[in-house]
């Protein structure tokens, strides 16, 4: 057993070295962009109520599923450009691309919308690829991916109309939306380019603001590279009344299934002072998978949850 482990860890050493260089690169990128690195707690009294993200409980509190609420409280207090690298915990998420404890990079900018945070993401990935000597042509699992910016964009409506044959904005069906994303939409993404899929039905974005002048389109964008979901960004919802309503309806759904929820009162209070801002969460493990040509998340983390 011990021998197996030492062999396994030796085998992924090059990848873990590459991972360390990526971490350095991320910090260098955000220093150049004048961001402040911050560090919020992993154990918290409340997490954002989201129907399909299940937290671990910890002595009546929770292990953080995302640093979003605390980071936004910093923005409400006047911080303008902040980033964080931290572990997040999500119960029952384990697979080739999932480990229930994973590493998130999250950053926020005051005074901008999601277009800007998507541009940041493009620039960050190019910056890292160059730093690692990969250049703008990445080889992943035998396929070449052209990373040159700007990356193609497609709206959720276009993608679903073209590839799944229905419009999720006219009659939203969450189950069908998720199934089709996996079976019909992602497989149609171009294999040789990253892609940004954007403008989601409001039901899919509990913390994003609605596109000005619309009643059902949330300014949410997701970045996919080689079929891997890499990052999820919003123009943040800054209206406290609307934020409260969205969380209440989300919690009502969660109560039906008996999931433990705690009202995040301090966050809701802070939204009153939340300035116009944009933020994005990027899965570092998946980015490392891409940049090290790894098919599975287990190749880029030393101790996946079932090997502890």
């Amino acid at each position: 057993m011990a021998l197996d482990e030492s062999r396994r860890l030796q085998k992924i050493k090059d990848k873990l070295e590459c991972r360390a260089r990526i971490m350095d690169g991320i910090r260098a990128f955000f220093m150049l962009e004048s961001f402040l690195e911050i560090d919020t707690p992993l154990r918290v009294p409340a997490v954002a109520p989201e129907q399909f993200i299940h937290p671990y409980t910890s002595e009546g509190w929770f292990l953080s599923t995302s640093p979003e609420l605390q980071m936004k409280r910093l923005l409400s207090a006047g911080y303008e450009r902040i980033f964080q690298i931290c572990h997040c915990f999500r119960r029952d998420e384990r697979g080739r691309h999932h480990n229930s404890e994973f590493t998130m990079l999250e950053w926020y900018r005051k005074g901008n919308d999601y277009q800007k945070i998507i541009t940041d993401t493009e620039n960050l990935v190019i910056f890292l690829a160059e730093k690692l000597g990969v250049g703008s042509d990445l080889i992943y699992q035998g396929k070449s991916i052209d990373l040159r910016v700007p990356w193609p964009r497609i709206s959720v409506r276009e993608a679903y109309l073209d590839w799944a044959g229905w419009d999720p904005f006219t009659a939203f069906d969450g189950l069908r939306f998720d199934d089709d994303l996996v079976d019909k939409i992602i497989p149609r993404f171009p294999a040789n380019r990253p892609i940004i899929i954007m403008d989601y039905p409001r039901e899919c974005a509990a913390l994003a603001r609605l596109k000005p002048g619309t009643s059902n389109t949330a300014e949410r964008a997701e970045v996919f590279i080689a079929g891997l979901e890499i990052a999820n960004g919003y123009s943040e919802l800054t209206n406290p009344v609307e934020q409260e309503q969205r969380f209440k309806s989300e919690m009502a759904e969660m109560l039906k299934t008996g999931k433990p929820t705690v009202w995040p009162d301090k966050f809701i209070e802070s939204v009153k002072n939340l300035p116009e801002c944009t933020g994005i969460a990027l899965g570092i493990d998946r980015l490392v998978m891409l940049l090290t040509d790894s098919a599975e998340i287990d190749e880029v983390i030393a101790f996946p949850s079932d090997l502890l």
Partner: protein
Amino acid sequence: MNIEEVTKNTKMLIDNVPFSVETVEFVKPGKGRAIYKFRLRNLFSGNVLDITFHSGEKVEETSVTMHEMQYLFQENDNYIFMDSSTFEQIPMTKAQMGEKGGFLKEGTPVVIMMWNDRPIDIQLPKTVELKVVETSAALKGATITAQNKEGKLETGVIIGVPSFIKDGDLIRVDTRTGNYLERVGNK
């Protein structure tokens, strides 16, 4: 059981038919539902079924048991086995046995998978020793390893054997491939 608890080799019932989980693929859009894609094997027919479940769903778990048994004899269309610990006799049909029936002789130890007192699968020893009862004479000049002639075994099954094998030889056979492995004795 909750869908989150299903792993490879879990046995579950669908419409009262037992299935074994062969592969589990977990997919989850970050903000969306967890999707579980299972490849199942029907334990009655051996057929494969691909099926998708979502987080929050439940399945009915079932269990199968493994029993060490011995082959006794053939009776009509059934092969009769005896449980080595309870001495109970159980039949398996020719259809269930398939080609495996051709490698059974009296006393062969096997492991039988049972579900609800019903035999559903059988594992033979990896190799068995069987007597050649009928084969043509060696061809002149034939190499010794080539399995270039047919040999009928005591169970009635016919396999390829090297040319030096004669009637009455005892040979070892691989039960998974039906291939001749070696000669272990001769008359």
